[in-house]
C-alpha cells in the first residue's frame, strides 16, 4: 500500500501541477497580448506625431512658397505703408490669396492670412474672409514670422484645431509682412493618420472632442490627459512613457493612450488619444475555445507522448494495486478458507505483510484466546467431575462419571499443551462439522439441568418445546452400531476455529448452538427426574452394549451422583444448568456433564 499511496500522491501532484499550469498559461499569453496592444498603441501614437511633423514641414514649404509670390510681396509692401487698410485693398489681396491657394499642388491650405509688417491682417482667404484690419501680431507664430522665421503651430479656435504654418514676406532686406496658411484637423485627416495603423484617433482641446477618425467616444480620456499634464513630463515622450489605459464606449472596451499636442493649443489642453479594441481576458476556457482543430493534429501536438505517459501512469498504478492489494488479499482469503476448513490451525502471519499480516495476527490472537478459554472451561469441568479416563483424563478431556465398575487406574502422563489455537470442548467430541444436526452421530444429549426458575437473576429459559419422546433405544443402538468400532476421529473430536468463527456470537454462540437441543429442566422437577432416568437408561443400555457389568447400578445412586455433579457445576459462576450425556470412550460407557452457561 505504501507505494500505491506514493503513486497516488504523485498522480495527484501531477494533476495539480497540470491544472495550475493550465490556469497560468493564459496569463503570459494575455500579458503578451497586452504588450502587443501597448506596442501597437505606442507605434500608432508615434506615427501620428511623425505624420503631423511631416504635414507641418509641408505646410511650412507651402507658406514659404506663398510668401515668395511676387504679387504677395508687392501687395503686403503697399499695405504696410498704408495707415488704414481699406476694403478695396482687402478685396484685391483676398483674391490674390485665393488664387495662390488654388495654385498649390498637393494638400492645399484651408485658409491663408496675409499680414503686413505691422501685424495687421490685410486679407483672409478660405476662412473669415470678410474680416480684415485686425492685428494678429502677438501670436507666437505671427511674431516669429514677422521676425523672419518659418515655423508651424497648432491653434485652437472656433472649437477646432488648426495646423498652421507661417513664413515671412521679404522684399530685399526688408520684411514687409507674413503669410499664414492653415488646415483644420478634420475627420478625414484623422482617418488618413490611422489608415495604415488600424487604430482610431480622436483629438481634444479644452476638454472637448474636436475631431476623430470614428464616432466612438471613449471615456476616461480627459482624466488621463489631466494626469499627463500634471506629471510635467517631456511632451515628446508622451507616447512611449505613458501606459495604455482601459477605456469603454458603451459595452465595448478599448485600450487607449493619450499624448499632448504641441504648440499654442497645448496651453488650451489639446491632446489626442489613440485607441484600439481591447483584447478580452483569456482565461482557461477562452483559451480552450480558441484552440483550433489544427492545434490538435498529430503534427502540432505530441499525442504519442501523452498517450505513453497515460499508459505508463495507468500501468504503474495497476501494478502497484496488484502487488500491494490484490495479491495479499487473495492470499489472505485463501489462508482464511484453509483455516475455515481446518486445513491449517493458524493463519501464517509471516507470509502476510503489512496490514494483512496484522489481520492475520489479530485472528490468531483471537484463536489463541478462544483456545485458552476452552482449556480453562475443561479444567473447570475436570475439577468438578474428576479427570477423565484413559487418554482423555490426562489430555484435557472433560470428566466422566463411572458408575458401578472400579475406577480405571490413573495414568500419569506428560501433559502436552495444545497448539495455541487448538480448541477442544470436550474429549471426546464429535468430529467438527458445520452441520450440527449431523456432526455428532455418536453423541446422545440429555436435557440439561438448569437452575432457571430458582434464581431470579438467571434469564428465564425459553419455554420448553413439546418434550420429545426419549430417544428410542434402537435408534441409539443403531447409532452406536454405526460407530462401532468408534472412528478415530470421533475419539478425539475437535471444533475447528472456523466453526467457532462461523457461529453467530463466536464461542458462546457456538456453545449455545451445541446445547440448545433440549431445554434444561428445572431443578428437582419431575422433568429433571425424567431426564435423569433417561440418562440412566441410556447409560445402562450403553454399558450393556459395551459389555460392561451393570450390577449395582441403580437409578437413585445414579441420580444422586448426577445431582451432586450438577450442584458442583452450578456453583461455578455463570453456569445455569448442566446437561448430561452418555457416550462410548475406549469401548466403555462414559457419562459427560456439560455446564450450560
Amino acid at each position, binding site marked *: 500500500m505504501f507505494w500505491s499511496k506514493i503513486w497516488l500522491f504523485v498522480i495527484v501532484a501531477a494533476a495539480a501541477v497540470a491544472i495550475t499550469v493550465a490556469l497560468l498559461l493564459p496569463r503570459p499569453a494575455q500579458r503578451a497580448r497586452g504588450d502587443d496592444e501597448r506596442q501597437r498603441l505606442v507605434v500608432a501614437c508615434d506615427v501620428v506625431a511623425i505624420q503631423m*511633423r511631416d504635414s507641418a514641414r509641408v505646410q511650412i514649404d507651402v507658406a514659404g512658397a506663398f510668401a515668395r509670390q511676387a504679387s504677395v510681396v508687392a501687395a503686403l509692401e503697399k499695405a504696410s505703408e498704408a495707415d488704414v487698410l481699406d476694403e478695396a485693398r482687402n478685396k484685391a489681396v483676398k483674391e490674390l490669396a485665393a488664387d495662390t491657394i488654388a495654385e498649390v499642388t498637393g494638400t492645399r491650405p484651408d485658409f491663408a492670412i496675409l499680414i503686413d509688417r505691422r*501685424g495687421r491682417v490685410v486679407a483672409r482667404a478660405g476662412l473669415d474672409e470678410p474680416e480684415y484690419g*485686425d*492685428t*494678429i501680431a*502677438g501670436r507666437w507664430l505671427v*511674431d516669429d514670422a*514677422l521676425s523672419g522665421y*518659418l515655423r508651424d503651430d497648432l491653434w485652437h479656435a472656433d472649437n477646432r484645431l488648426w495646423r498652421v504654418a507661417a513664413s515671412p514676406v521679404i522684399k530685399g532686406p526688408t520684411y514687409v509682412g507674413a503669410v499664414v496658411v492653415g488646415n483644420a484637423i478634420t475627420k478625414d485627416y484623422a482617418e488618413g493618420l490611422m489608415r495604415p495603423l488600424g487604430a482610431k484617433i480622436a483629438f481634444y482641446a479644452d476638454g472637448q472632442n474636436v475631431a476623430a477618425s470614428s464616432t466612438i467616444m471613449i471615456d476616461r480620456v480627459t482624466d488621463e490627459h489631466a494626469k499627463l499634464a500634471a506629471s510635467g513630463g517631456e511632451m515628446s515622450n508622451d507616447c512611449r512613457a505613458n501606459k495604455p489605459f482601459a477605456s469603454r464606449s458603451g459595452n465595448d472596451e478599448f485600450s487607449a493612450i493619450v499624448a499632448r499636442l*504641441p504648440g499654442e493649443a497645448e496651453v488650451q489642453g489639446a491632446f489626442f488619444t489613440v485607441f484600439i479594441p481591447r483584447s478580452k481576458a483569456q482565461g482557461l476556457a477562452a483559451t480552450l475555445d480558441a484552440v483550433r482543430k489544427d492545434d490538435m493534429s498529430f503534427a502540432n501536438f505530441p499525442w504519442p507522448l501523452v498517450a505513453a505517459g497515460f499508459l505508463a501512469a495507468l500501468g504503474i498504478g495497476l501494478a502497484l494495486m496488484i502487488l500491494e492489494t490484490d495479491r495479499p488479499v487473495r492470499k489472505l482469503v485463501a489462508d482464511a478458507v484453509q483455516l475455515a476448513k481446518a486445513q491449517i490451525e493458524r493463519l501464517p502471519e509471516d507470509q502476510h505483510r503489512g496490514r494483512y499480516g496484522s489481520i492475520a495476527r489479530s485472528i490468531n490472537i483471537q484463536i489463541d484466546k478462544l483456545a485458552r478459554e476452552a482449556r480453562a472451561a475443561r479444567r473447570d469441568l475436570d475439577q468438578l467431575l474428576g479427570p477423565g479416563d484413559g487418554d482423555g483424563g490426562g489430555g484435557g478431556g472433560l470428566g466422566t462419571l463411572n458408575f458401578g465398575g472400579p475406577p480405571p487406574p490413573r495414568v500419569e502422563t506428560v501433559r502436552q499443551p495444545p497448539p495455541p489455537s487448538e480448541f477442544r470442548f470436550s474429549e471426546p467430541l464429535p468430529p467438527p462439522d458445520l452441520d450440527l444436526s449431523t456432526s455428532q452421530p455418536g453423541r446422545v444429549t440429555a436435557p440439561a439441568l438448569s437452575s432457571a426458575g430458582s434464581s431470579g437473576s438467571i434469564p428465564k429459559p425459553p419455554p420448553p418445546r413439546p418434550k420429545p419422546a426419549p430417544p428410542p433405544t434402537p435408534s441409539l443402538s443403531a447409532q452406536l452400531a454405526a460407530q462401532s468400532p468408534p472412528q478415530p476421529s470421533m475419539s478425539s473430536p475437535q471444533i475447528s476455529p472456523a466453526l467457532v468463527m462461523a457461529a453467530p456470537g463466536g464461542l458462546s454462540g457456538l456453545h449455545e448452538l451445541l446445547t440448545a437441543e433440549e431445554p434444561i429442566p428445572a431443578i428437582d422437577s419431575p422433568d429433571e427426574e425424567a431426564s435423569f432416568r433417561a440418562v440412566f437408561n441410556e447409560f445402562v443400555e450403553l454399558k450393556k452394549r459395551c459389555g460392561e457389568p451393570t450390577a449395582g447400578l441403580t437409578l437413585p445412586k445414579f441420580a444422586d451422583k448426577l445431582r451432586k455433579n450438577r450442584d458442583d457445576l452450578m456453583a461455578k459462576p455463570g453456569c445455569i444448568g448442566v446437561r448430561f450425556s452418555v457416550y462410548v470412550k475406549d469401548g466403555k460407557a462414559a457419562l459427560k456433564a456439560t455446564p450450560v452457561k
Partner: protein
Amino acid sequence: MQSRSLCAAAVLAMAVPAAAGPVSGKLDLPPGAPDRAPVRGRAFVDRTPNPLAPVRAVDPLPSIIVALEPAPTTQFPPPPPAAVIWDLLGESFARPVLPVRVGGEVLIRNKGRSSPVLVATGKPDLLVKKPLNPTAEVLFIAGKEPGAVELLDASAPHLRGRIVVLASPFFAVPNAKGEFELANVPPGEWLVKVWYDTGWLDRPDDRITVGEKRVELNLKLPAKWPLKKP
C-alpha cells in the same frame, strides 16, 4: 502710434506748477538687441530662420518706460491721476508695457475680433472675469501701490500685457526712434529711471535738475539689459 499719443497726452494733461519745464531726451541703446525669448509654442518643427534676410532683432522700445522720481528735496503738488487708454488690437495690446500712475484708471478697448477673458496675475479681483467682446471697453484702477500687474487671457496664451504702476506722475514712453519727452516737470532735482519689460534697468540713475529751461537727456542703456533685483 495712436496709443503712444494717448499716453503722451495723458502725461501732458497732468497738472504742473507754473515754473515747470520740459524734459526730453533719447535712449542710447546698447549694441546688440536683447536676447530673443525662447521659442514659444513650439509645435512639430523647430522654427527656422528664413534664408533670404537676416532675422529681425528684438525691438526693446515698446517695452521701455522712462520715469522721473523726485529727489527728497523736491517738493511739488501732485497732480490728480489721469486715465490711460490701452487698446487691445486683436491678438496683442497696442503696447506690451503700459505705464500708469498709482490710483490711475486704465481703459482697455477691444479693437480685435476675439473676446478675451482678461485676468490679472496675482490680483484676481482686479478685473471682472468675463469676456471682453469686440468694441467693448473695461475701466479699472490698476493699483494703489507701485508695481507691475500682468494681464493675460487664459484661453489665448499669447495675449499678455503688463501694466507698470508708478508712484511718480512724470513718465514717458519712447517712440520708434527712442526719443521721449516729459512736459511740465516741476523744478527741482529728479532721478531718471528706465523700466524695461519686467523691471527697472540696472544702471546708474541720472540725477537732473529741472528748471524753466528744457532739459535734454541722453540715456545710455546698459548692454545685455540687466534688471535690478526687486
